């Protein structure tokens, strides 16, 4: 790991704490017919609580695969992934689903809202899968939507919302189960610069104000200034 590329802004006490996410020599090999294509080749990285980490790299660098690993969306071919000290690399799909539902909030480039559901229903969805009673879900979803400034647009469907508004619904949804980690995959990729800035400021506030750990995947150098630390990937490993 090249120390010059790590922009360490972490405060000292936090270094002492255990990492919230740790990847140890993670390999992910996809099979395309008879050919094996490695997307990750022994990736090792740590994310500490309350950090804002940006994972950067060009297309094909393995950053999306890394993001899937960190987000418990996928399991590695080899290696170990620890989330909160628990090895999740051997868990089955349903257990992974429960863990990511509880501990990780996702923000995607394409928003990924359920088209048939209203804003509030989209925000309630992650809580549904955690068996939270309806009145609690509704109360929390309303509060979150108000916080992202969509108090007036709660009962609109995604198609009736602008890109920026959709991404704000996604942010509210990512906070639904009050996860420790927010994973943002190119969160401004589909937005104009003004809206992109708004969204980034919102993420920044979540980090500094709400103490969330944020892992952002991006290829946009200009976004790196929001992060405490940048992890550069190339050919499936850190550089």
């Amino acid at each position, binding site marked *: 790991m090249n120390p010059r590329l790590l922009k360490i802004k972490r405060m000292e006490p936090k270094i002492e704490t255990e990492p919230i996410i740790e990847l140890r020599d993670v390999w992910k090999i996809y099979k395309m017919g008879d050919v094996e294509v490695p997307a990750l080749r022994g990736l090792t990285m740590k994310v500490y609580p309350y950090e804002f980490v940006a994972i950067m790299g060009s297309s094909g660098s393995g950053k999306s695969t890394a993001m*899937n690993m960190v*987000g418990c*969306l*996928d399991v590695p071919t080899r290696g170990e992934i620890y989330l909160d000290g628990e090895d999740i690399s051997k868990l089955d*799909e*349903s257990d992974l*689903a*429960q863990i*990511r*539902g*509880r501990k990780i909030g*996702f923000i*995607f480039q394409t928003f*990924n*809202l*359920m*088209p*048939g*559901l209203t804003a509030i229903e989209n925000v309630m*969805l*992650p809580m*549904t*899968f*955690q*068996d939270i009673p*309806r009145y609690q879900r509704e109360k929390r979803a309303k509060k979150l939507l108000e916080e992202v400034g969509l108090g007036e647009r709660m009962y609109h469907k995604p198609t009736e919302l602008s890109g920026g508004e959709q991404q704000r619904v996604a942010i509210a*949804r990512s906070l*639904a*189960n009050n996860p420790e980690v927010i994973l943002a995959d190119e969160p401004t990729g589909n937005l104009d610069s003004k809206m992109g800035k708004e969204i980034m400021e919102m993420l920044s506030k979540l980090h500094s104000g709400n103490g969330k750990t944020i892992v952002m995947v991006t290829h946009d150098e200009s976004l790196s200034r929001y992060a405490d630390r940048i992890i550069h990937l190339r050919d499936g490993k850190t550089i």
Partner: protein
Amino acid sequence: MIADYLKLAIDGIMHRKLRSWLTMVGIFIGIIAVVALISLGQGLQKVIDEQFEMVGGDRIIVTPGGGTFGAIGGSFVSAKLHKSDLDVIEKVRGVDSAVGVIIATGNVKADDKRIVVSIFGAPTDPKYQKLLRQIDFFAVDEGRYLKEGDKYKAQVGVRTRDFFDTDIGVGDKIKLEGIMFDVVGKNKKTGNPFHDSKITIPIETAQELFNKSDEYSSIMIKVEKGSDIDEVAENIKEKLRRHRGVKEDEEDFTVETAENVVGVFKDVFSLVTGFLAGIAAISLFVGGIGIMTTMYTSILERTHQIGIMKAVGARNSDIQLMFLIESGMLGLVGGIIGVILGLLLSKFAEYLVVNYGGIDIFRVYASPELIIGALLFSFLVGCFSGYLPARRASKMHPVEALRHG
């Protein structure tokens, strides 16, 4: 949770209205057939049972000719039943009483209208009247029974008025085969169109009118209490064979118990029902395949959404349950529509039977078990058909699903 999945399922169905409707057609055609058939069948069963009770379980009918439907075939065969046959029958062990009657068709004239109606020639002898009056279709509601000494007197059925402009009542006169008859009694309504439109006259008069002296169209027998009706029927058969000099299986007469007659109808009906139930089953099977196809398509279309739900924490079992509810709903809604249309169809059939078939007592009967059963069954067809697609959906990999679409 189920309520939330139900909402998602309904959303899914409503988003694909046309496809959902077309899918449900497959189910409700089958359910229509099942509901209509069974409610008609149960209704018919009731009519048959009531008719059976009306004729009486202790009755045997002997008709000339060898066919199964003796009463119908009887008029076309040369073999005849005579007083001597009646005498033989009366002496058979287990026979309580027996009566010979004439059944024929005759021209009736009243108020210048000429029509053909069924004539029932009944003995007026008190000995025979005693038996006849126990039979429902002979019972008089208004006026009096034919009695000894009557010659040109008649009892009319309630439906005879259908053939005339005016109601035929007690005290009216009708012209039968050119001879005037006084109407002395009106028969009780039976609901059976044959019995309700027949005209009953003294047998001697009928034999004279139709040149059938010493001849019966059928002999009705009442079995003694405690005797086995089938055994008595066999005895009658044997005695008549000997009397008429015919061999077994070559009889020129038919001995039928009420149960025989009902049994034939039941056999035919269960055959028809079985056949149609087979068609209904095939239709439901095809409907189930339709649901399966729709669900596979729907899951393919919603792969991305499945990915989203998995990303935000949906377990495999959540996804599976969600799609099972959706396919079950397709089945259930199809079932509800099918039950409603099936009931309407059977009511329409009832209307036709009552108004054009004249069987007034016919009522379709849809038991609560039938309705609940049909709904449950359609829901289950939906669930079973959705099982494999739902399983596929639940096993989708979240990353691949998210990448899709």
